[in-house]
């Protein structure tokens, strides 16, 4: 799935200081039957977000107009549980481009990178600083700089760097998924194929 390029993202953030948010919460199993990658954002955190009668749950952060932005800041061990790629699709489709946490479940992290959501892993202390900053002022901006691999709390200037695999970084910078990367290599592949008999 092609997605937007990621370079420097400056945005307010939505705080979700909950640990072990699992993919069943991010997108409940009953929404996996779709055959297209569309509309998953509507069901992001479905059961935390809506009552059974589809009225919004007032106290859930996504329903609180004070908080908005393209960055989701989650508690430790974000994205655990089932390996469903749909969870990452839902996060992206809702409009988030970046998830910050002090620890990500492995498969979720990979799925995010494949669909255009940047997972930024920070230290537990720094995560706490972010939550405090947003609590003090919901309009606090975060700056995520992919080329430099840094994240900054704009109001305080506190900065931390984060790690990312070099290949995945290139992909994110160019808005490529693995298939885009391969399609971009097409000429080289064709040359290779010519020299490789059937």
């Amino acid at each position, binding site marked *: 799935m*092609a997605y937007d390029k990621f370079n420097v993202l400056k945005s307010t953030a939505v705080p979700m200081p909950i640990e072990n948010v699992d993919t069943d919460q991010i997108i409940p199993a009953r929404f996996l039957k779709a055959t297209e990658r569309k509309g998953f954002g509507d069901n992001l955190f479905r059961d935390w977000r809506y009552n059974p009668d589809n009225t919004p749950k007032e106290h859930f952060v996504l329903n609180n107009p004070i908080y908005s932005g393209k960055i989701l800041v989650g508690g430790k061990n974000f994205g655990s549980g089932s390996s469903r790629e749909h969870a990452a699709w839902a996060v992206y489709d809702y409009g988030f481009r970046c998830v910050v946490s002090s620890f990500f479940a492995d498969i979720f992290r990979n799925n995010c990178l494949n669909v255009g959501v940047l997972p930024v892993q920070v230290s537990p202390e720094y995560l706490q600083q972010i939550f405090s900053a947003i609590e003090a002022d919901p309009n606090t901006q975060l700056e995520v700089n992919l080329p430099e691999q840094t994240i900054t709390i704009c109001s305080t200037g506190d900065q931390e760097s984060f790690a990312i695999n070099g*290949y995945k970084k290139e992909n994110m910078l160019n808005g490529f998924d693995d*298939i885009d990367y*391969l399609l971009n*290599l*097409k000429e080289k*592949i064709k040359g290779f*194929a010519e020299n*490789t008999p059937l």
Partner: protein
Amino acid sequence: MSKTLFAKVWDSHVVQKIEDGPDVLFIDRHLVHEVTSPVAFLGLKNRNIKVLYPERTFATADHNTPTLNQHLPVEDPLSAKQLQALEDNAQEHNIPYWGLGHEKNGIVHVIGPENGITLPGATIVCGDSHTSTHGAFGAIAFGIGTSEVEMVLSSQCIMQPKPKSMRITINGKLNPAVTPKDVALYIISRLSTSGATGYFVEYAGEVFRNMSMEGRMTVCNLSIEMGARGGMIAPDEKTFEYIKGREFAPKGEAWNETMKYWQTLKTDKGAVFDKEIEFQGEDIEPMITYGTNPGMGVGISNGIPSAKDVEGGVDTFKKSLAYMDFKEGEDMLGKKIDFVFLGSCTNGRIEDFRAFASLVKGHKKAAHVTAWLVPGSHKVEEAIEEEGILDILQEAGFELREPGCSACLAMNDDKIPAGKYAVSTSNRNFEGRQGPGARTLLASPLVAAAAAITGKVTDPRELLQTQTV
């Protein structure tokens, strides 16, 4: 520099090395079936692109097809829909499609070698984990997921980190009634189902040199069950002999050229493997599994081990025995069985039917046993008839079904009922693999034949002896 066979084939297919990332590996031949391909084709549609090399892509219907009345429309609507989708996709992208009833139809890993699609030194992938079968020809072959199927359809390449290398050497001679399936089950029982995780295996030594091509396919097929990415065997005269003249294999001048290359496909002296393992052929007995993963196998006369003797999880061991309703320390010999399944890409080729027939000849199927004999392809089916094997089977009270994966994964109607015991020549004895609640004993075609005649787990050597007397 000395290189392993695996490294020679891998390195010659790397289109691009990605620093800090996987290798981009060129795929020579891509096999496609109805179950893992529809979403991948949908991906192509969404990108508005075509299959890059349809001539390197081959499609067959096998996973959810019925094994009776294939001339009639498929009854199960979901299966019918998947089959139709594959047919439409194949047509749209100009891919050869060998659907139900086609003379080349059969299980994807049986028809690849049969038609000369599988070649030494090639890279071969398919959305089915037992793609490792094709390694028998000295190919790098492995199973892939649906998103990777989409990658290969669109770019003929796949992104893969290079696995580590392992060599399993078995010298010596095999005992009577010990088949390639027993060799594989023996290795898995010794290594466990994760013993080769992260590795690509090369099988070497006298035992594999002496094995037929079909036997080598059985061994490579089961590589995945010890966790390996795949397994391969260096090609030799037997390999070339097998391939020569098959439809998609090189011909004439091209054949001579390719042969020069193929003859270089062996591990150089002094090449270093990340791990080396050795066994002795004489130590292997006819094998059978008693638990719910392929690593839980024993020599058929040995019986089920005690929990204290198994390595690793005692809980898993106990849970497994509870599912099978077996007890630790019990004999396997003499256990009553209900079903026999001869077939799958592990043991659904002509040699497997020959072996089965050699044992049931002159005997009768046990009355209480239901036997499903499912050839791996139409070509196997034809050979069964031509060689007179069908007559032997029918005389002994068996029927032949039509080709497909059948009870290997029980996606069609061929499901072992809950609680019933099946001696099966397929590759997985997981809980519910052959049907909800089904209990699977993996074994060779000879052990399956012995069980089909006596109705219980039986040492095939007993029957071989009575035959020679």
